[in-house]
């Protein structure tokens, strides 16, 4: 290893900082029998190092080892010689999660069981509100009765609303009740990548066996399967195998199963076989409760007025809310300042500006017109045909909901209409949302587009 360190030190002098830190730093190393083995994280880095630095590295190695090490091998992977103790420590300290095993060496050949469950995501840490109470109740049922209650269980909703949290909570509950249950959480992108790798390494039968032997399979963001036919095919068979043997399948997506584009019909229809629930953006009280709960987890005392201030200004999703909180806490810690509303205004100013900027009447009109494929001037015109008036009413309702403008201001912005027209529109839309699924879906979609 001393030889490698000398080589690296020399290269550091010869290369720019960016070159060194991009290409040389991520290499892992082991040395055996006169061969220096370099491990690159991926094929791209491997090829780059091959073509740009191999020659120089071999020359340096030869020089520093007095000719004893003259050969370098470069491969994709991680060094097996990496001291396990340090690695474990680093992993557990960075993210305390149970049962997570570190991979090493030829990481693709040994498929060990890894649940990938994050123990922090439990039902206890999930903040319930009107927007998610049905999803939570169903999740608890599935957690206590996996494979029996509803199969598959499909959770959909916008980004950062807690789908992944619920999914992990179910997984954790299953594992706690039955520690021998084989539960796996995996993001759909990762499933695809793993499958491609298995195909490349001729390990597809092992891949299949692994996924089909699980007691619960949790796949996040299935919309990322779109257009990946081979993966869909494989997932289809996995799905069937698990379903037939009554093992639990849990899926999430950003939209209703039928609306996920680029998915085969047979998958879409299967996704709808069990129970489908949605999570909605949380209301103000829930947002405050979420902030308080996250603050309690980090061990921070969040003043109530600061909680309300942040929750009132950041509406779009929980992840952003959490981002704001972490930022407040970090800034307060480092500057030693007290967490007040003024402090929050200062620290979060760019986020607040982004939020204010996003939701204007103009923006709502633009988004609604685009959504219904009509022109903005039609939206503002006197036309009263339903294809124009319905989108107009929806846009007015959204303007009332999402901006602080007065009703006369909203009316004026829609082609100089009276405020009573706005009142009529909001009443109409709110009752239609109860009666017509299509209106409700449109409204929710628009709300999502505007607030995420």
């Amino acid at each position, binding site marked *: 290893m001393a030889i490698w360190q000398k080589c690296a030190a020399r290269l550091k*002098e010869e290369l720019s900082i960016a*070159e060194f830190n991009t290409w040389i730093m991520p290499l892992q190393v082991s040395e055996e029998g006169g061969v220096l083995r370099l491990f690159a994280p991926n094929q791209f880095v491997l090829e780059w190092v091959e073509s740009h630095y191999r020659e120089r590295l071999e020359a340096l190695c030869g020089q520093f080892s007095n000719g004893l090490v003259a050969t370098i091998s470069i491969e*994709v992977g991680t060094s097996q010689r990496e001291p396990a103790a340090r690695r474990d420590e680093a*992993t557990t*300290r*960075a993210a305390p999660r149970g049962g997570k095993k570190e991979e090493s060496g030829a990481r693709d050949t040994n498929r060990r069981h890894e649940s990938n469950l994050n123990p922090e995501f439990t039902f206890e840490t999930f903040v319930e509100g009107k927007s998610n109470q049905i999803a939570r109740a169903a999740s608890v049922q599935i957690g206590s009765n996996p494979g029996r209650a509803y199969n598959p269980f499909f959770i959909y909703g916008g980004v950062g609303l807690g789908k992944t949290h619920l999914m992990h909570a179910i997984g954790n509950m299953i594992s706690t009740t039955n520690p021998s249950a084989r539960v796996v959480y995996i993001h759909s992108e*990762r499933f695809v990548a793993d499958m491609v790798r298995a195909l490349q390494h001729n390990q597809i039968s092992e891949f299949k066996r692994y996924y089909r032997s699980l007691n619960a399979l949790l796949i996040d963001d299935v919309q990322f399967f779109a257009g990946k036919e081979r993966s869909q095919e494989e997932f289809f068979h996995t799905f069937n195998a698990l379903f037939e043997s009554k093992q639990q399948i849990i899926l999430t997506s950003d939209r209703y199963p039928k609306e996920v584009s680029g998915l085969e019909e047979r998958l879409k229809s299967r996704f709808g076989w069990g129970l489908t629930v949605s999570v909605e953006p949380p209301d103000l009280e829930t947002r405050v409760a979420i902030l308080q709960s996250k603050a309690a987890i980090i061990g921070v005392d969040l003043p109530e007025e600061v909680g309300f201030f942040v929750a009132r200004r950041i509406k779009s999703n929980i992840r952003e809310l959490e981002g704001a909180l*972490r930022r407040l806490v970090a800034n307060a810690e480092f500057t030693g300042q007290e967490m007040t509303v003024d402090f929050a205004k200062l620290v979060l100013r*760019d986020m607040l500006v982004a939020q204010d900027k996003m939701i204007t009447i103009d923006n709502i009109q633009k988004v609604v017109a685009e959504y219904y494929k009509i022109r903005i001037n039609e939206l503002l015109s006197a036309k009263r045909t339903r294809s124009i008036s319905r989108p107009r009413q929806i846009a007015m309702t959204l303007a009332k909901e999402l901006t602080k403008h007065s009703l006369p201001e909203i009316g004026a912005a829609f082609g100089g209409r009276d405020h009573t027209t706005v009142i009529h529109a909001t009443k109409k839309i709110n009752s239609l949302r109860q009666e017509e699924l299509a209106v409700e879906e449109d409204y929710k979609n628009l709300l999502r587009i505007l607030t*995420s």
Partner: protein
Amino acid sequence: MSSPVGQIPLPILPRPEARFETFVAGPNAVAAAAVRAAVATDGEPYLFLFGPPGTGKSHLLHAACHARVERGGTAAYLPLGEDRLVPAVLEGLEHVELVALDDVERIAGDPDWERDLFGLYNRLREAGRTLLVSADRPAGDLPLGLADLRSRLGWGPAFQLQPLTDRDCAALLRAAARTRGLDLGEPAIAYIMRRSPRDPRGLLAVLDALDQASLREKRRPTVPLIRTLFDDLERRN
């Protein structure tokens, strides 16, 4: 990232490195402290730094990589503005303990990059790795096509980096001269501050040029030498 060989002046100068110790924090002390804490793994495993060019984002990312390696860990730095990089460079990075992604705005809007970055984000999070991301604007303002990615980038604490004041710039010049072993007096510093661009990158470029001129001409870096240097530079432009 062109071949460095032609750019190295002879004799080879000690290359100053981007370290925490050489970071002139000025108004960015909080951000620097947060990055240091993240490197020590007792801070947040994910941080987002944003601000205009020349505010020290890359410096902090490099320093973080260096510090993690010093602690016996592994790290990788990826300048996403570098055109020759392709999304495949993100594969397998979850096996690296600290990943620093610079200039993420440069890949915003590219569906392949966004998808693979999203995948990497999830893998790093699953593996509990440290991720540092920099951009020229807040995560919410990036022109990303993938809402999932925007929301994830906005998850951790974000720190806005501010341009250095003139006084900070002078301090930076002083510190950078010291690491280069260049004996720069206060009149010389004042002179450079009056005539060169007042951002760290411009100042360091002047300093490097001065360092070389001083070596070449075997003269001390005093105001007369600096004046000649600036005159030379102006003539060439």
